[in-house]
């Protein structure tokens, strides 16, 4: 052990004025409550000193700033495909202030985590998350005067946009409300090791192929931090699983599903719809099967846990759910802050080869959208747009778009005379395990019916969702696609 380690990473003390239980109350430190000795030997594989950390981060920030100065943010984005720009807008908005919530979560671990090394690693994690908030805010602030949609990188979580409601519901529980143990398993093990670390690697490779140097550099700068502080998860899960296997399994099952819902929405539509066809590599399904499913199963088997009970449902959802979400979101695109495209014949042929077991069910939906665009004049977005109120899940707060066009997997639960509706059986199961934790969060429909949100679409968009015409999502090509023959018989 290096000499510095005992005085820094491993610095600890024996409390004398209060008991250990008072110093680390179970409510905040987490369950199971183990003694100081039981946490001894908690070990993260990759260790760093503060001096080394500051040196590395300084270099990474210099790289981001050098790119910003050399290219100019606006120039960097101007040449990039319009649909791909939506990827930066979608990720920037969901990421930036979400990472700020992660600062709070990490600081809780800095105070209440049970091992000195864990607290020390979480301190670096908190500093990491400050960077991850500031980098997209800085780079996208440069772009707002050229494209107002980038304003949502800062605004999203300050609005009641439905994506914001869903994002806050997840991130508040994940990062703000969790105790140190649940935070480590949910955030560091499941969310970061299972999803975001891999997502950043995959997405930065795609950004490179697309020529989006700004997004590539941002993601690379963030990913190396994620890989380091994600290490908190596994040693914590090992201890919890050894002490209370059922609880460890519950946390893994719950958070894998909650993380998956967000991941399949954001990354699924990015890889299979918003990435220009010429730059696509693996499909989202192939990526998930290789990098998420296989790695995740190997990790949980290592600590003696089983695959989540809903695994077959999860495997089915890889083939369907993000297609369901994208078609739905496209037809409600004015409710978000980024533009979308209709998949043309070449894209649909690609999707058919990548999703032979599910794509045929989505063909009629895009045939219908295409037919409506043929009837409408280019640029008249609301001629090809939904007007009815969509339904939302009482747990994840996302739209009820799980399952397939033949069978939507929405299900319900009556409790205390109230009917709660869920996008899927796993979301219902999570709610049922801790109903008192979730029943006070009304979804968008219940907000509208209670008079807390406007039912009128335009009012809903502008007053409630923080959107205005320049910002709300449109068809990226204004419905004017080279493959869409308009005018015959009109």
């Amino acid at each position, binding site marked *: 052990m290096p000499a510095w380690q005992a005085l820094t990473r491993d610095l600890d003390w024996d409390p004398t004025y209060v008991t250990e239980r008072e110093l680390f109350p179970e409510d905040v430190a987490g369950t199971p409550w183990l003694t100081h000795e039981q946490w001894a030997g908690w070990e993260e594989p990759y260790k760093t000193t503060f001096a080394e950390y500051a040196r590395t981060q300084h270099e990474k920030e210099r790289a981001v700033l050098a790119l910003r100065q050399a290219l100019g943010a606006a120039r960097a984005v101007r040449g990039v495909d319009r649909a791909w720009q939506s990827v930066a807008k979608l990720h920037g908005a969901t990421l930036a202030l979400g990472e700020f919530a992660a600062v709070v979560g990490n600081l809780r671990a800095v105070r209440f985590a049970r091992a000195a090394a864990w607290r020390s690693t979480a301190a670096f994690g908190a500093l990491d998350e400050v960077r991850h908030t500031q980098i997209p805010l800085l780079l996208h602030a440069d772009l707002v005067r050229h494209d107002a949609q980038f304003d949502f990188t800062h605004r999203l979580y300050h609005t009641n946009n439905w994506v914001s409601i869903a994002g806050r519901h997840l991130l508040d529980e994940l990062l703000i409300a969790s105790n140190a143990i649940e935070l480590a398993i949910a955030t560091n093990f499941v969310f970061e090791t299972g999803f975001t670390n891999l997502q950043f690697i995959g997405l930065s490779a795609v950004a490179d192929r697309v020529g989006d140097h700004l997004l590539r550099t941002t993601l690379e700068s963030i990913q190396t931090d994620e890989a380091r502080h994600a290490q908190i998860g596994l040693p914590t899960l090992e201890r919890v699983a050894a002490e209370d296997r059922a609880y460890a399994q519950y946390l893994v099952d719950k958070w894998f599903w909650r993380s998956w819902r967000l991941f399949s929405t954001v990354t699924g539509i990015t890889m299979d719809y918003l990435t220009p066809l010429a730059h696509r590599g693996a499909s989202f399904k192939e990526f998930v099967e290789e990098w998420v499913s296989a790695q995740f199963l190997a990790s949980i088997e290592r600590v003696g846990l089983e695959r989540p009970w809903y695994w077959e449902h999860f495997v089915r959802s890889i083939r369907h759910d993000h297609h369901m979400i994208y078609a739905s979101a496209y037809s409600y695109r004015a409710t978000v802050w980024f533009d979308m495209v209709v998949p043309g014949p070449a894209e649909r042929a690609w999707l058919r080869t990548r999703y032979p077991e599910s794509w045929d069910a989505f063909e009629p939906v895009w045939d219908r959208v295409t037919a409506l665009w043929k009837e409408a004049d280019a640029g008249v977005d609301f001629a090809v747009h*939904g007007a009815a*109120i*969509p339904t939302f899940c009482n747990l994840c707060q996302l739209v009820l*778009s799980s399952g397939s066009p033949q069978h939507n997997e929405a299900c319900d639960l009556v409790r205390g005379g109230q009917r709660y509706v869920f996008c899927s059986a796993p979301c219902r199961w999570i709610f049922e395990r801790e109903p008192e934790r979730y029943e006070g969060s009304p979804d968008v429909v219940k907000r509208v019916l209670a008079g807390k949100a406007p039912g009128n679409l335009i009012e809903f968009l502008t007053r409630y969702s923080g959107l205005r015409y320049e910002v709300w999502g449109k068809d990226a090509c204004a419905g004017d696609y080279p493959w869409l023959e308009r005018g015959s018989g009109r």
Partner: protein
Amino acid sequence: MIVPLYGFVEGDTIGLVVLARGDTTGAQIVAQLSDAASVRVDPAGPWRLLARGGEVPLDKTVEELALAPFERVDLRRRS
């Protein structure tokens, strides 16, 4: 009294809210729901209306069917 129902149209990708009243008939629910989904699904019928796992007579009202707020109804194409 408004009875919000959660409607799912065969071939669609999202559930939609149907704001029914006690005297709204099954046929009116079919019309409202198929129109609401028409941006993604061809609204031309004929449709069957299903609730609680069974087909619902289109002339029956929400009150007669005792449909409760947020209950699920499905539109399926009549084959």
